[in-house]
């Protein structure tokens, strides 16, 4: 057998083989604290050195997440802003109501300290027999009631607004996924997409649903508090506010760095989970190969890396807290001192001092919240940029307006490369005869699957053309293409949905009769009608579980509905699980009846049953003819057949 020489394939082996005894540890020694006995000053210096190193690691992880080497693209921050800008703009009214109600809630909350201060004033100035004490107290109760009502209203609108925004955002994302180019979908691994629709949508949801409204509320509260403080007393407010302002640089640095730290932490946890999932799912493999210690080590290494990311975040927060603790608490002292001086000068009364103190104490909470929410929003924005990146995949085809004239499928001079300069097909010509069964055989890596994808219009050949009825397959609108030729792989995914949803895919307007007919053709109607709600029964993961055979029948019924004149079956024998093969043979036959079939065959009996056999080696069709002709030819196929039957 003249397989491509193995020596060629492993040509670079010596260069890429690595002596793993010298592998660096998961965490470099520079990130370990100095041993005991080192002086406090040196310890401190070492801490900041480690902190700088950890920052570098976080920056690297962040940069890599923004510019993934593999998988789907990631969009920029501007796209994220524009996306949410549009979503908010389309909800101007509810946004306005949201702001107004929150302002009212925050405003009424700020009236209370003023009234309490007023109460203190009266008590102080009038001593015994205070007038209007009860009335004042009742006023406060009234304001508190209003505040409660406004709070309810504001929260309610926030929920509506946040949930609505979130629903639109996630529906848009899933919409873009459903428009991804066929060629990319067929080739790429879906793991990255799964992560995006689960983890990234979750992160985005948290920041859209809670982050956006809370940021608004907190910002409004801070703004109005500042206004209230200034209205209460300029002399008392300005010094306290200046002290607050002192923490701005620390906050700014924190906000620049924290999102990267959190994204890095998140990445380490998903790595921990990935490794553990592999260990759990491959528990038997681990046991069989004696990999237990290695898997435990891999898990511990992941945790070590994660701990470093956590330490970075922890130090960032400690630095921030140092600034915030001062900035939030010192104004109390300042208010006290300035208040005393101003009181002795007669500039302020005791009520103003009381109110100022209450304001200062109360301001720390919304300020804290603003910092927290900005933090969270940045992490959410990073996830959103990964989600919006999906929309940036360029379409791989522009449907023309020509429709095929006839059903003849012809491939001419087909060449194709997944990596530039590495053609997998080197000029294949193949004329399918209408109604024939053509088996494609050949060793793995010879290009037979690629040939199938070109013949099914999934990918555009680098040179040459694959046409049906004179029109390039890749120039057909998808819905037309699907009714001309279908690529059938071993996947027989059952979607979460009704039986009908699961069958009508190619023609979503199919009638129930058509669906029943298709199910009958593949021998599935009987069990479908026994389901609790017949065609309307929900099936798919976690619902009414189908047996593998039933799942395969559903997959076949989809194709009956699509009714293409040509089928390309990849790993056709795998579509039918050997365990269910006997029961499904009839179903399969009724699908293939009357259609042109290209079967990329693993098993020789498939080839033997075909009208013609194409032997693909090294990206070329080297033999083409009927079973008997090829045996006569005494080439590749004949040699294989003899091996099979001897």
């Amino acid at each position, binding site marked *: 057998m003249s397989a491509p020489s193995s020596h060629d394939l492993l040509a670079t082996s010596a260069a890429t083989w690595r002596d793993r005894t010298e592998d660096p540890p998961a965490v470099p020694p520079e990130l370990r604290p100095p041993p005991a006995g080192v002086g406090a000053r040196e310890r401190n210096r070492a801490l900041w050195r480690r902190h700088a190193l950890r920052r570098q690691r976080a920056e690297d992880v962040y940069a890599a997440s923004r510019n993934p080497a593999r998988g789907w693209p990631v969009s920029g921050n501007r796209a994220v802003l524009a996306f949410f800008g549009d979503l908010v703009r389309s909800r101007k009214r509810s946004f306005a109501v949201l702001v107004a109600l929150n302002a009212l809630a925050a405003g009424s909350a700020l009236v209370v300290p003023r009234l309490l201060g007023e109460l203190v004033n009266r008590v102080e100035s009038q001593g015994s027999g205070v007038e209007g004490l009860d009335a004042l107290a009742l006023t406060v109760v009234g304001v508190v009631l209003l505040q409660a009502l406004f709070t309810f209203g504001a929260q309610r609108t926030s929920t509506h607004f946040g949930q609505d925004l979130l629903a639109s955002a996630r529906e848009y994302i899933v919409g873009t*996924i459903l428009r991804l180019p*066929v060629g990319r979908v067929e080739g790429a691994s879906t793991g990255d997409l799964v992560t995006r629709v689960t983890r990234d949508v979750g992160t985005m949801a948290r920041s859209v649903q809670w982050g956006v409204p809370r940021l608004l509320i907190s910002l409004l509260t801070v703004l109005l508090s500042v206004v209230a403080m200034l209205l209460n007393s300029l002399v008392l407010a300005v010094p306290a506010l200046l002290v607050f302002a002192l923490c701005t640089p620390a906050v700014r640095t924190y906000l620049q760095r924290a999102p990267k730290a959190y994204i890095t932490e998140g990445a380490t946890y998903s790595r921990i989970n990935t490794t553990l999932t592999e260990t759990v*799912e491959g528990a038997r493999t681990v*046991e069989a190969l004696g990999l237990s210690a290695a898997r435990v080590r891999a898990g*511990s290494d992941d945790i070590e890396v994660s701990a470093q990311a956590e330490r970075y975040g922890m130090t960032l*927060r400690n630095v921030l807290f140092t600034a915030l603790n001062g900035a939030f608490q010192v104004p109390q002292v300042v208010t006290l001192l300035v208040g005393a001086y101003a009181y002795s000068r007669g500039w302020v009364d005791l009520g103003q001092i009381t109110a100022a103190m209450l304001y200062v104490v109360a301001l720390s909470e919304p300020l804290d919240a603003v910092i927290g929410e900005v933090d969270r929003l940045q992490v959410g924005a990073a996830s959103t940029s990964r989600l919006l990146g999906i929309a940036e995949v360029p379409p791989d085809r522009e449907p023309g307006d020509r429709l095929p004239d006839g059903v003849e499928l012809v491939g001419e001079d087909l060449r194709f490369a997944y990596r530039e300069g590495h053609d997998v097909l080197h000029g294949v010509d193949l004329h399918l005869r209408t109604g024939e069964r053509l088996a494609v055989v050949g060793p793995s890596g010879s290009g037979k699957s690629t040939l199938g994808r070109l013949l099914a219009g999934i990918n555009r050949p680098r040179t040459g053309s694959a046409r049906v009825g004179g029109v390039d397959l890749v120039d057909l609108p998808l819905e037309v293409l699907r009714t001309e030729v279908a690529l059938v792989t071993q996947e027989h995914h059952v*979607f979460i949905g009704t039986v009908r949803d699961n069958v009508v895919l190619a023609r979503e307007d199919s009638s129930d009769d058509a669906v029943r007919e298709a199910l009958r053709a593949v021998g599935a109607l009987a069990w479908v009608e026994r389901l609790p709600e017949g065609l309307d029964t929900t099936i798919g993961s976690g619902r009414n579980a189908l047996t593998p055979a039933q799942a395969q029948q559903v997959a076949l019924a989809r194709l009956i509905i699509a009714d293409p004149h040509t089928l390309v079956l990849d790993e056709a024998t795998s579509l039918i699980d*050997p365990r269910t093969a006997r029961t499904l043979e009839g179903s399969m036959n009724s699908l293939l009846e009357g259609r042109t079939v290209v079967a990329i065959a*693993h098993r020789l009996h498939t080839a033997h049953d075909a009208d013609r056999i194409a032997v693909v080696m090294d990206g070329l069709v080297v033999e083409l003819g009927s079973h008997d002709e090829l045996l006569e030819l005494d080439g590749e196929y004949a040699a294989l057949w003899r091996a099979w039957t001897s």
Partner: protein
Amino acid sequence: MQDFPPRTATFFSGTDAAPDPDPDTRTPAAFLRWVLGRQKALIALSSLCYALWFLPMTLGPWIFGRAVDDGIVGGSTPALLGWAALLLGVVAIGAVFGIVSHTLVVRTWLIGLYGALEMVTRKVVQMGHVLPRRSPTGEVLSVASSDSDEFGALTEILARTVGQLVSYLTVAAIVLTMSWQLGLLTLVAAPVLVGAALPLLRPLHRRQQLERSRTSDLTSLATDIVAGLRILRGIGGEQTFGANYDRQSQSAKEAGVAAGIWQAVVEAVGVLLSGIFLVTLVWLGARQVEAGALTVGQLITFLGYGLFMVGPIRTFFEFAQKGVRSMVSARKAIAIFEQRPPWRDPAEPVALDGTAELHDAASGLTVRPGILTVVVSAVPEQSSALADRLGRYLPADTEPVPLDGDVDVRGRAARRARAEKARERARIAALDEERAGRDWGVTLGGIDLARADLADVRRQVLVSDTGSQLFAGTLQDAVDPHGRLSREQAEHALRVANAEDVYDALPEGWQGQLDERGRGLSGGQRQRVVLARAIAADPPVLVLVEPTSAVDAHTEARIAERVTQTRRGRTTVVTTVSPLWLHHADHVVLLHDGTVVAEGRHADLLETDDYRRVVARALDEEEVSR
């Protein structure tokens, strides 16, 4: 003092040293006590630091009140400065301990979290293939991914609660000395406010639960769409499933809005109650000032404490909620951690000889050493059951028992279902113990496998079944997971498995990254890398279950030939029905209903009808058609 990540060696030490003592898994509460007990000192210290961090809030209003009385109203500048200096001192102490307690609490949290993660990994490798027989994978993973975090959170909330309790009692002492009526009001108000909000929490929780379940349904829909994206883009159906998603998204939104509205009610009631408490406090205080029982400064102190009380109340609340959550998590963790491997290594293990004859009593199979034996069976399950026995694996005859069944079932029915599940788990565990304890029925060189150490069995007999998995890492790691091979050996293994194309597809060659579970490779490529790994492991006895079911005939022919060559002189068992393997076999065994019914050479067996029916499908058809 402990630091994170913690050094853990529970369940499995990875060395010859004995593992750490097992956790207390008798009850959820006992388990939580065990978790917390492991870092007693650290939690106590962080509680203390929390209390000191809260000092400005605990003492601040009192100092401020005294400053107003003595300094401002009393007009004494030295007194004012003295009180201001004290306030500054207290603030400074708070600031320092804020950072210390944050550092400590991150530490306890992460020790709890990472510790639980380590324990899950170690339990999984300790149990090996036995764990998936008993517990659903999802439950094991959720202990790691979400319950572990609850244990971390518990350490934090415990320390914070103790710290707040200290503050609360300090404040109580202060206010009681100023005015017993107001002091009492302040003290009683906290539990009363909590109690008043409690009835609202139940409907809120129900709605939040609904929202969570709809959101998780939504996530499964999205995952489902992505998983079937090739079909959706290849065959169609984008509109149907896009619309399904949108519908579920809207229903999740409605549930979210309903939960949000209840949240709004809870918040508003909170605002109302704490506002009214504040007013009552001040009004009563003003009356007392009027009566001369209280100074203005003290009234201001009460105002400050009125605001402060919200903090401890919230914390106690959170403690109660997280406590309940950790109990739930503890129950889930126990279900995994309490399991014990069924194996008891014999007191006097006998060393096995991998070059001797292997015999299985149940099927009557005898594998002669040093040759290639192919096992043929019309029913693939029967040959894989045989392979399991040869390798001393418990048969795949149990369904993992989930901890919780239907979430909609409550009360007595739920308890009954739970007890039923517990019984089923116990039954499987007892069954495993019984099977693992008695003679195994497979002998190697006349010695029953049960008389040898399990580790020795694994060294002598490698079973590579259809579930064999690849792990994320480089191609080099995949073929040589132990790092024991020379480059030539690895290259040889890759060639034997005809997996050179996998190498070629990776621009970085041996250092090319494989995704987790080898995702991104085709089924055939995965199978061939798994085979290369098994060949490279070079065990004395190699059992391959359907090693080429996903590869084409050309490749299968090549693999069969090369495996035969490279294993010459060592014992190899392959289960398959492919003639491409069979005519390389030194010895062929036909299995019917799990027992050996015929054996001999392929060519000879072809004479028998039974064998022909199983093996030579193509030949049969040829026969019929001619």
